[in-house]
């Protein structure tokens, strides 16, 4: 099958899955609502019960949109970093995004700033500062062959380790009632979003498009930078563009959701097992699949506890790790 048709097919299929899962997630919850009723309300018809309609429009739909954006962005971020660094353990936070954004967020919380824009802004700034430091480091240590993947990787891991120490220091100095806020943020928490922040999510859409266009160059980069250059890729510009765009979109998402873990690591691997290594297929698959996956996880995080919710980051790994192992075993068997 030609690759173009394959891409369309996978995109349509996973797009439908995403929509279906979204509607199910919007229907579920303490305040009633069934699948068909939800569908009718979303279509703008059958507004029999005003309260249900309000809950769906004002609370659950934004929540599902956030989950889809966070899941899609993190999965795509992991895919790009795994390709750029040619390391299967790479995830979207690996260049220091997690450490930088966490320090920023915790400091904002300790200063008593509001969740938005205070914490989000501090977290975004922290993430960008660390990224700038890591890329500058990778650039200077190797001079001519700038952005070498090993120095990027090591720089990122070291910065994250350093930041982890700072985070633990900050937590150790914190009074009890704030600790839970901080821990929830560190585990990833989708419950804080307010509707007026939704438009920020739109920023990731153009990033998705650019990364999709760079799908083929990413395939070539997997064969080695020199080989890619020999086949007409401007390696330096491509790598730089991918780094900047991916880091930006992940930083934006993290500033709104906290550090939702594991999605970015496992979703790219699952789709690589299912679809092969072609990034022109993997980019749309990760966006849609990552989005669907996080909606499911967030749904479980909402409905599983008898009262309240648990951080979605717990579910992502709890479900994702066994799922991945299962696929791996079936694949090798």
């Amino acid at each position, binding site marked *: 099958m030609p690759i173009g048709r394959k891409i369309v097919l996978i995109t349509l299929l996973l797009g439908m899955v995403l929509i279906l899962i979204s509607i199910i997630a919007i229907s579920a919850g303490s305040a009633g609502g069934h699948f068909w009723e939800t569908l009718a309300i979303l279509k703008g018809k059958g507004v029999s019960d005003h309260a249900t309609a309000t809950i769906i429009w004002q609370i659950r739909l934004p929540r599902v949109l956030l989950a889809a954006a966070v899941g899609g962005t993190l999965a795509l971020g992991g895919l790009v970093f795994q390709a750029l660094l040619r390391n299967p353990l790479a995830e979207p936070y690996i260049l220091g995004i997690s450490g930088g954004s966490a320090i920023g967020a915790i400091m904002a919380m300790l200063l008593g700033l509001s969740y938005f824009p205070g914490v989000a802004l501090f977290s975004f700034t922290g993430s960008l500062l660390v990224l700038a430091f890591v890329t500058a480091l990778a650039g200077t240590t190797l001079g001519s062959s700038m952005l070498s993947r090993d120095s990027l990787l090591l720089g990122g891991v070291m910065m994250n380790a350093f930041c982890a120490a700072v985070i633990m220091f900050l937590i150790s100095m914190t009074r009890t009632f704030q600790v839970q806020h901080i821990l929830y943020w560190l585990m990833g928490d989708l419950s804080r979003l307010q509707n007026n922040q939704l438009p920020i999510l739109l920023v990731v859409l153009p990033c998705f498009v650019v990364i999709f266009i760079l799908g*083929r160059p990413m395939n*070539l980069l997997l*064969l*080695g930078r020199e080989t890619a250059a*020999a*086949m007409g*890729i401007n*390696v330096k510009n491509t790598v730089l563009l991918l780094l900047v765009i991916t880091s930006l979109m992940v930083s934006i998402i993290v500033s709104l959701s906290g550090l939702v873990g594991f999605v970015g690591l496992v979703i790219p691997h699952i789709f690589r097992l299912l679809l*092969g290594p072609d990034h022109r297929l993997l980019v749309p698959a990760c966006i849609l699949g990552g989005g669907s996956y996080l909606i499911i996880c967030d749904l479980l995080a909402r409905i599983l506890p008898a009262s309240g919710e648990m951080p979605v980051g717990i579910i992502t790994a709890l479900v994702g790790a066994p799922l991945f192992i299962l696929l791996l075993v079936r694949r090798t068997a």
Partner: protein
Amino acid sequence: MNHILDINNISLKYSDKLILQDISFAVAKGEFFVIIGPNGAGKTSLLKILAGLEKISHGCVKVRGKNIRDYSRRTLSQFMAIVPQQIEIGFPFSVAETVIMGRTPHLGILGMEGKDDFHMAREAMEFTDVAHLADRKLHQLSGGELQRAVIARAICQQPEVILLDEPTTALDPAHQLKIMDLMEKFRREHGTTIIMVSHDLNLASMYGDRLLLLKEGRVVKTGAPGSVLNKLLLEESYGCRMQVDESPVGQVARVTPIPAKFLPVHEQNQ
């Protein structure tokens, strides 16, 4: 002017170390040009410079009469392909997927291949005899098959120049000849210029139109195989004893490096 490549006085430095010094030569269109020389002579660096993958400290490389720096990566790749020494196969691409990557410099911004591209990939795979392996993953191939798959990718790029870096080093004699015959056939059919780095002096002798002998970053001699494969030049460049005579299979020079134990006793300890 029939030169596709003009190399003028180029030098290459890594920090303070001079890798290549004052190198000048030209390669004619359709020529089979072989670069030989001992390890560390700078052969691979020279090949990378010809491909525009390495920046030179001094001098100028002209491709089709135009400075190589004035070409974009894409334009250069539309008529120049490289078969590298080491092939990275970390991700499980199939042979067909790998070969069609050679179409990259000819594709539009979305990088989607059309029917023609698939057709060309098919032809390239048939030419190098890997069509039956199309769906096999790269890491499942033998050395000879892998090398032919990579050459198919280079051919699929429709180049006017193919640069090969020691394409036969890891192969048995039959596979070495198969690769060399493929390149020779492709050149005959398409008028492609072939530039190859090789350690195999006898293959260089049998297939090369002209050879360039490199030692410690300098050109020792450029010319027809018969003139470059000279006993004294080779012995001095490689630092071992050699015998050069006419090969029994045809009018080409045959080079035999002589192990110490076959030397006369009074020379053995030198």
